[in-house]
């Protein structure tokens, strides 16, 4: 059986667009995230949305709607700049907004805030930081357990000279307990917003390991990892876990 160009062209178009139309009809064809987080599958919370599945592509408006949190509280907790519509502000943009801070304020911060605001369980084994304003709102809510309260006191974004330069943050409202010294940051082998590639090398991670995790050659050692990553339009939090694992292996 021979086939010439015209029937072949028709076959290609029919199979390609037919496949797209068929999968669209079955609701399988999705070109973006569903913006519906996963739900808890066990226990008394079964069926409720799990804040741990909040993605960077969500907007504050969507988080507000999904988790029934007032948009004003979210805007205040994350100090969305005046003139910016918090409802359409994507969570992944937080990393750019707070690029100069010593600790990362990003999607994971929103996950933590949402969970504690709603009194939902959240894994506190990872270091996730919040702005002082967010902590104040959570304390006002009065749903924090002693363990959560203690965790938050150690994970309020430290105010540094860089942080003071951020227009969206009121430096005067930082609780004294939140301020970390630079020496604490150096001895703490945690990959965070201010960590440079040199820090990783100093902690014993080899350049080959870093190249392997990045999927490309490591840039200049003094480059801040977060800046390097966000400049590419990617979320720092996605690579942070892999780098932290490499650091932990050297202990």
């Amino acid at each position, binding site marked *: *059986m*021979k*086939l*010439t*160009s*015209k029937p*072949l*062209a028709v*076959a*290609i*178009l029919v*199979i*390609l667009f037919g*496949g*797209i139309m068929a*999968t669209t009809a079955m609701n*399988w*064809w*999705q*070109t*973006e*995230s569903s913006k519906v987080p996963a739900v808890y599958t066990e226990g008394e919370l079964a069926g409720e949305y799990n804040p741990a599945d909040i993605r960077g592509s969500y907007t504050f408006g969507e988080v507000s709607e999904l988790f029934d949190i007032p948009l004003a509280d979210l805007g205040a907790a994350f100090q969305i700049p005046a003139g910016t519509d918090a409802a359409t502000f994507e969570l992944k943009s937080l990393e750019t907004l707070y690029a100069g801070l010593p600790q990362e304020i990003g999607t994971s911060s929103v996950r933590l805030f949402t969970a504690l605001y709603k009194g939902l369980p959240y894994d506190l084994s990872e270091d996730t930081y919040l702005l002082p304003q967010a902590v104040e709102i959570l304390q006002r809510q009065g749903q924090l357990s002693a363990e959560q309260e203690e965790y938050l006191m150690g994970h309020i974004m430290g105010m540094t000279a860089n942080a003071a330069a951020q227009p969206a943050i009121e430096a005067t409202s930082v609780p004294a307990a939140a301020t970390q010294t630079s020496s604490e940051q150096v001895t703490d082998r945690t990959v965070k917003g201010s960590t440079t590639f040199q820090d990783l090398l100093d902690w014993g991670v080899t350049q080959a390991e870093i190249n*392997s*995790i*990045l*999927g*490309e050659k490591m840039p200049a050692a003094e480059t801040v990892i977060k800046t390097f990553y966000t400049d*590419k*339009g*990617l*979320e720092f939090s*996605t*690579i942070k876990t*892999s780098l932290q694992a490499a650091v932990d292996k050297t202990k």
Partner: protein
Amino acid sequence: MSGDILKKFTRRRIWIRSLVQIFFFGLIALISVNHTLVTTGKEIPFLSSASLHALCPFGGVVTIYQYASAGTFVQKIHESAFILMLIGFLLAIMFGPVFCGWVCPLGTFQEWIAGLGRKLFGKRRYNHFIPQKIDRWLRYLRYAVLGWVVYMTAVTGTLVFSNIDPYFALFNFWTSEVAIGGVIVLGIIIAASLFIERPWCKYACPYGAVIGISNLFRIFRIRRNESTCNMDHVCDITCPMNIKVSEKHIVRDHQCISCLECTSEAHCPVAGTVDFAAGRN
């Protein structure tokens, strides 16, 4: 192959293939523009504004591991890429890598630059700069690229290929989303296309590497009838992938893109000698 033979034929394109290629190039370009317009509150009506990552079948390939192990997709990849991958496989099983030869806008773009290269260097020299001995081994480089991309995506859980993706760079060069690595690779491809036809497809495309394997078992194949072949080597000269069609009965080369340029419908001057056909003979 002599200059006389080259003078005997004029390059005839299969117009329907060119039309399909222009259609897909325009469609992807418009969708990409629409993706940018949406962020400004404007939108081209009745047209998708999907991210190009969502419309690339290779996205489906790189997320297979994560989907199998965790049931989720790699960041920026969605169900659509997975579906396109499956459609691409179905097309490849039936007709070979027609996605490369008929649909892929990056392949089309390289062919357009090839037209300029042919004018610069002539039909005989263009696409024959690299010595065959070296070229033969370079053709397997795309499998190394495929292995690296799949492995790194599995390890990091991120779309590492986006850092060097020339397809994304071609349709997003005006946005901040494009990686400098992608722009550099695209620049190299443009320069190389002046000397070599489809350099990215030949030496580096990981998706081409995947569906190129279908050439070993596809249903419709390029077949040469040895009894009527006059051995003028026109099929060899016109093949954009430099396959020696005149030395084969059935083309099983992993680089064939089913463009049909070698067939009697296009350049082969003898009717019924090089055909696209299914069946044993």
